[in-house]
């Protein structure tokens, strides 16, 4: 019997490997994995980092990228950048928002309120393309969840056990720090830039960040790497604003389930004890009305 087991196992393994084998070589460099405060089951957002990331979004990204699904009030939400409501309101007031129609039937601009959505930098897709040489910058609301990287077999299985959910911010960080000189012989299409981590390497976005470009008031180094890290964290929050609440509730639920299931296990053992361990005591079992 043992022999059969081993044979079956070997064959099963061979079949699986037959599928997994011949793994194709990966063309672009894999984005290096970064350390994120929101890593793992207990990792939460670092609010100072989200505030810095927001600053970069506001001063750099927002010139071209919209953030359509977020409102200014979200900046004051628990588990977010943790601005006060007054701060969020004053940030809102720095934006001009289209409103209307008014009593005369005219659309008008007014300073943003805390309940407003982030206004887009361009009125519509065509306006964006016209201003940016035909390119359309993606909306950033879900960007950190809409970008990823294939690690291939078997790493994606490992990702479930290490609870790796940060492929998006890793990718964004890699793109922002991946502007290098093109290798000799690489033809960059007009209007494009070379990026080490971008699929196909020819990215439409010009290098957005350079050292010292955005001022930090808390002594954090003003390097491209740090900017990229902060804005990636901010975008992760923008895409997944309930992460903190989810992980906090998750811990309680898991603890409850483990205790509850443990109790069920002992109940089960108790109920089945007579059946398994005292087979001569056939009668005391529940009557079933079973007939041969």
């Amino acid at each position: 019997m043992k022999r059969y087991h081993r044979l079956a196992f070997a064959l099963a393994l061979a079949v699986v490997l037959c599928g997994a084998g011949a793994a194709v070589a990966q063309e672009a460099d894999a984005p290096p994995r970064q350390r994120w405060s929101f890593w793992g089951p207990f990792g939460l957002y670092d609010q100072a980092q989200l505030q810095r990331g927001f600053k970069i979004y506001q001063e750099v990204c927002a010139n071209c990228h919209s953030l359509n699904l977020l409102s200014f009030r979200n900046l004051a939400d628990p588990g977010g950048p943790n601005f006060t409501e007054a701060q969020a309101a004053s940030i809102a007031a720095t934006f001009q928002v289209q409103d209307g129609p008014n009593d005369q039937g005219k659309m008008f601009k007014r300073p943003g309120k805390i309940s407003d959505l982030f206004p887009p930098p361009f009125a519509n897709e065509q306006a964006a393309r016209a201003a940016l040489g035909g390119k359309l910058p993606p909306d950033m609301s879900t960007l950190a969840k809409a970008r990823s990287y294939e690690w291939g077999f078997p790493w994606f299985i490992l990702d479930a056990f290490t609870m790796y959910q940060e492929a998006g911010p890793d990718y964004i960080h890699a793109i922002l720090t991946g502007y290098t000189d093109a290798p000799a012989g690489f033809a960059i299409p007009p209007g494009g830039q070379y990026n080490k981590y971008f699929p196909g390497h020819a990215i439409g976005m010009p290098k957005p960040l350079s050292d010292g470009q955005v001022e930090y008031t808390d002594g954090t180094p003003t390097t491209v790497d740090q900017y990229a890290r902060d804005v990636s964290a901010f975008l992760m929050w923008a895409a997944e604003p309930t992460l903190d609440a989810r992980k906090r509730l998750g811990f309680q639920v898991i603890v409850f389930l483990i205790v509850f299931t443990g109790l069920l296990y002992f109940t089960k053992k108790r109920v089945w004890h007579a059946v398994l361990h005292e087979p001569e005591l056939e009668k005391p079992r529940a009557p079933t009305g079973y007939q041969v």
Partner: protein
Amino acid sequence: MMSGESIYQPQSAFMKWLERRLPIASLVHSSFIAYPTPRNLNYWWTFGGILTFMLGVQIVTGIVLSMHYVPHVDFAFNSVEGIMRDVNYGWLLRYIHATGASFFFVAVYMHIARGMYYGSYKEPREVLWILGVILFLLMIITGFMGYVLPWGQMSFWAATVITNLFSAIPLVGSPIVTWLWGGFAVGGPTLNRFYSLHYLLPFVIVGVVGLHIWALHMVGQNNPTGVEPKSDKDIVAFTPYATVKDAFFVGVFCIVFALFVFYIPNYLLSPDNFIPANPEQTPTHIVPEWYYLPFYAILRGIPNKLLGVTALATSIIVLAFMPWLDTSRVRSASYRPLYRQFLFIFFATVIGLGYLGSQEPTGGYVIAARILTVYYFAFFFVILPLLGLFEKTRPLPNSISESVLQHGVPAGAPAPGVHA
């Protein structure tokens, strides 16, 4: 046969009054309390209960989600994001529902694998098995339509690819596809009808589950020996024995489920589906959800479209014919050494196909998929019929209780002699 006679005795005056008018209490009693189950069922038998539980979870979360979802091409994506952001605990409902679909399929694959291993499809359980295959088909359709609703890139393109399969049907293919779409491309009418059907089909599933359980209670459960219960010694009452065992394993299942919902909810979701649907931009790589991948690999491995679609349909429907394709008179793989080997290779084949379905259909991957597809069908159409004729099976125990006692009293317990 095994549907125990009702031994329910109403106690109170009201229950006596009700029993003469609507014997619902005795129905519940005979179905879920006194119902006899084999004493040797292992934990693989708990997936039926888990599936019922998951169906309930999906329906409850789905009904609440539908209160906030907007089935319109312009608003669907944002309404789902609105649920995630602005509805109280909307993120929880949505992650439970999306992850729940995956776990529903985990449970159904375990359930099917158990049926195949222990020969649960064999006489007299053919109708029970066929109802199960119908449920599996309904789940596939419901899950697919649900995946379209968030109207992300993968939703849209999966809908386009899958509905286009019908165009392979000769003559009427193209009109059928137009009819399915409600237009000349996947669009608003498609989304609306998928939403309507995604709400309807779960209740059809509930109905067929009712039939499935009814059929189960007519013929009784199979068990790891595949030998029918012969006496009172072979069985235990459903309550408390099966209920407490099921409840415990539902708990174990929920722990794993909760780990996914709370810690890696995006693990099973495609990043492309966080990009709103765009009919003008095809994603670089269209893949269905993981639970369809083996069938997708079969489809893509075959160069001819009509043959590919036929193979895809056959690969699922062939399950319904297992009771007649398998010619062996022994049910359980525990007593069928060769069947056991071939079955494990079959399981590995399905996993291998699943992996290949997730990869680009090029070069070695296509060849590997074709080899595995050949084994997939050979298992049903060649191995199953022939094995029954040539396989030398191991001797069956005379009864369930004998098999339990043969191995000594189960591990950890004193030998019977010590007791006596």
